[in-house]
């Protein structure tokens, strides 16, 4: 079976082609998938950033001001901006995939995939509106 065998009529030598390390560069769809998987790193960063912020708030006014100064540094701003874009990408790809995994029935009828997708976007919009309201209320 292996490529090292000598070929005989009764022992065919199969060709086993190995997947390239760079298989994810062969097609845009594969690259988009890897990009989607990579968004987990930015999710982890936002979680860490949130924990740092909570720690700063708990630490008092001085600690919080130092945290704000650190957050205003160019590399943190750049990282947060990139993370935000990756979060958007993560959410959109998650929503696009959701109707395939989540087949909802009303009675015996399945709800169309477009409605499931729309439901996700509506929930996202509602959650965003709530955050905006909390941040901007007097």
């Amino acid at each position, binding site marked *: 079976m292996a490529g090292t065998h000598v070929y005989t009529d009764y022992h*065919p030598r199969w*060709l086993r082609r190995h*997947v390239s390390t760079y298989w994810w560069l062969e*097609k845009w769809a*594969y690259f988009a998938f890897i990009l989607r998987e990579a968004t987990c790193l930015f999710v982890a960063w936002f979680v860490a950033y949130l924990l740092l912020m909570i720690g700063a708030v708990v630490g008092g006014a001085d600690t919080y001001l130092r945290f704000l100064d650190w957050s205003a540094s160019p590399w943190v701003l750049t990282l947060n901006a990139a993370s935000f874009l990756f979060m958007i990408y993560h959410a959109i790809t998650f929503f696009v*995939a959701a109707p*395939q995994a989540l*087949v909802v029935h009303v009675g015996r*009828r399945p709800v169309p995939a477009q409605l499931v997708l729309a439901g996700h976007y509506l929930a996202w919009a509602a959650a965003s509106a709530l955050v905006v309201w909390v941040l901007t209320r007097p």
Partner: protein
Amino acid sequence: MQDRITLQVARYRPEQESDITFEEHDVPCPKDWVILDGLNHIKDRIDGTLSYRWSCRMGICGSCGMTVNGEPKLTCATFLSDYAPGPVRVEPLRNFPVIRDLIVDIGDFMQKLVRVKPWLVREVEKPLTEGEYLQTPDELDEYKHYSMCINCMLCYAACPIYGLDSKFIGPAAIALAQRYNFDNRDQGSGDRMAVLSEHEGIWGCTFVGECTKVCPKHVDPAGAIQRYKLTAALETMKSFFLPRGA
């Protein structure tokens, strides 16, 4: 419309070659010719030693899956004129060992398919005198699109996970397992759960989604796998919170 197109056909003759080589042939390109017609033309008129599988020529048997310009395709359902002005590169399906030319070994898939019991499992068959198992159109719709799978294995060729880890049970086998799990006449979902919930079962899938895109029958294997992940997770939760199966 051009009247001829160049086919670049992969050749692998294990008695004389250690890797794939390509041969170019000019074939006619009428608008109703598919890739398979081009290959048949080469075999009939140019080189009778070219080896490939085909049977029905109508997208039913699933035999003639090949890689066409890098994409897994049924060659009986892929028109030459869509690739004009050419050339069109025809290779064996990816992720499978090549036996000769465009023929791949499908033994791995066949063994995996049997493991998920793709047939109706009944604990006890009711006597024939009680008649057939009745099913409503709604109950049929639950699984019908999964039953369209023709075992062409294009989904395996498109799946990088299967390419990297051949132990992964793969898209079509899971979709066919779901075809029976969603059939209200079936009672074998517990047996299938044991196979599908293994690490190389549903959890091997990272939802690249290419299996669904290349499926010529719109079976949506990626969706079948994600739905099963949800089922398996819920079953695990149930067994955790309701250990006595309440």
